[in-house]
């Protein structure tokens, strides 16, 4: 089963601390949503409010069109997969997975059959008589998933479920989570602070900071067209170049930076068109300094000198000094950048994003 979720003006105050500040969000049925942000950004609080473990100070939560704001976790069409898995240590896997069905009064034979089918879904049917302590971290993870899915929730809430796994296993589990989500069709709301994990699994990412939503969108749109400085910085490396708006022509706006004046297309101004004289920030991803030889229209930020370079496999990461500014550029792996060499700081005009101070998704 699956259902849509609607969060309206949710606020949670703990003493003097606003853990969640007037957050509104609509999640479509069957969507894989990732709440992304640093610790203390409010993502886990939002998840707990969805699960019913915390009541919001104000605001409402609706799941499948029904108001759930004051409904207890047991009576919600949600289940939670906890960060520490929270498996019942004294029960075998079959009883762990069947626990929710037992609480719903399902008979033994039917319950076992369903538990086996969910253990099969996560590839652990053969271990159904084992206890949780006999399993590896990744296997416990899968049991927790099977247990949470066995009761057919409309919405599955995942609280940093991959946090305790090592990197390789985490990547593998990401793929599995995504595949299982597609198969069961349940709405998944997943909390993480790892932006690579978010990009790997999410249909849409919700970037959060200081209790507010900074940005919402597909992984590509959040990475390529971030709508806040925080979102741009959290989703990967970025060069932030302060600038002042000098004037607006037909389709182009001229801004002045420490590296000279450049004319930018209107589409670069994702947070609205600022008036002449306003301060803005140019966001440039390091890998976009690769356009020196392309035929498409480019803009130039002059030349810089490579001060440091390291090979990362997929690219060379270079520090570049240009007119007293320190920039980072990712050059193709086929190039061999040398320290001291000059670099043409040229990039496609449409790869630049311009943000105004205080930009972000409004409440």
């Amino acid at each position, binding site marked *: 089963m699956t259902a849509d979720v609607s969060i309206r003006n949710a606020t949670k105050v703990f003493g003097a601390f606003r853990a969640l500040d007037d957050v509104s969000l609509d999640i479509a049925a069957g969507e894989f949503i990732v709440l992304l942000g640093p610790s203390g950004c409010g993502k886990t609080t939002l998840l707990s409010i969805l699960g019913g*473990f915390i009541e919001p100070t104000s605001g409402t939560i609706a799941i499948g069109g029904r108001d759930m704001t004051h409904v207890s976790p047991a009576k919600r069409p949600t289940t939670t997969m906890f960060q520490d898995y929270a498996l*019942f240590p004294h029960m075998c896997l079959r009883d762990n997975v069947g626990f929710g069905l037992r609480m719903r009064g399902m008979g033994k034979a039917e319950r076992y059959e369903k538990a086996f089918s969910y253990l099969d879904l996560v590839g652990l049917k053969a271990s159904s008589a084992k206890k949780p302590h006999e399993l590896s971290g990744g296997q416990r993870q899968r049991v927790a998933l099977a247990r*949470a899915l066995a009761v057919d929730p409309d919405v599955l809430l995942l609280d940093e479920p991959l946090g305790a796994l090592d990197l390789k296993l985490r990547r593998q589990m990401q793929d599995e989570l995504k595949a299982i989500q597609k198969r069961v069709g349940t709405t998944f709301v997943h909390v993480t602070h790892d932006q690579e994990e978010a990009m790997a699994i999410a249909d849409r990412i919700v970037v959060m900071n200081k209790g507010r939503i900074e940005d919402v969108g597909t992984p590509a749109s959040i990475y390529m067209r971030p709508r806040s400085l925080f979102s741009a910085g959290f989703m990967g490396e970025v060069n932030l170049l302060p600038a002042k708006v000098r004037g607006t022509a037909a389709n182009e706006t001229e801004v002045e930076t420490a590296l000279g004046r450049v004319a930018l297309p209107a589409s670069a101004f994702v947070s609205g068109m600022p008036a002449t004289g306003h301060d803005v920030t140019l966001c440039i991803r390091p890998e976009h300094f690769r356009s020196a030889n392309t035929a498409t229209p480019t803009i130039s930020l002059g030349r810089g000198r490579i001060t440091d370079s390291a090979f990362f496999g997929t690219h060379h990461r270079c520090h570049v000094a240009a007119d007293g500014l320190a920039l980072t550029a990712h050059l193709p792996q086929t190039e061999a950048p040398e320290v001291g060499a000059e670099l043409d700081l040229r990039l496609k005009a449409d790869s630049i994003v311009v943000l105004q101070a205080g930009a972000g998704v409004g409440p």
Partner: protein
Amino acid sequence: MRHLTTALAATYAGLLYLFIFLPVIVLVLFSFQDGTLPVPPLNGLTLRWYEAIFADGKLMAALGNSLIVAILSSAVACILGFLAAYAFARYTLPASGLLRGLIVAPMTVSTLIIGLGLLSVLNLTGMRLSLLTVGIGHVVINLPLCFAIIYASMGGHQVNIERAARDLGAKDWQVTLLVTAPMLAPSILAAFFLSVTFSWDEFIVAFLLSRFDVTLPVEIWSMLRSGLDPRTNAIGSVVFLVSVAFLIIMELAVFRKTGKSS
């Protein structure tokens, strides 16, 4: 030099263990004395004193009483201790530290004081002295211990497990009965068996709070009043053996469980 210190350390350890266990060894040894006095020299080995105590109706009744009091009072102490520990571990209570201190405080009070206090309270209420009053006394003595053991094993990581159970639809009583209590089984069993061994050979409270039906230590005490006799050694050995048996059961139950859940 090194050999000397090792030898000295070994001697010291040997003497220490001898000091602790010599009384028990002597007690058990002279329960087999072929003679009427349980003192050296050892005249030969016989089982007739054991025959005598197992044929003694009064003694066997006292032994049965002791078992009943030990098991029932320990069960009550464990249930009460578990409930108290659950409340302190899972809810924020006013003056929690002070209240927890008050629960364990009786551990520091001598059993004589507790016994006398209970005696006056029972006199006030007009309750007749019986095995029931002995049991009540043992609950008072063992509750702090049970509470302390169970409370120590309740950690934050179990909160999420209980939360998961609730999330999956369990009602509060189902969480307690199907998740919390089984999860804490090792410490609850440890508390139970330890409490059983304490109740099993407790004398002062049992002596003060009983009248016609008495427990084994009280019966042994009245035997001793008529002088030393290898029968007292034999019944003493039986008491010791049962205590050891309870401790072994506890070790097996607890360590097998904890070994599994780690």
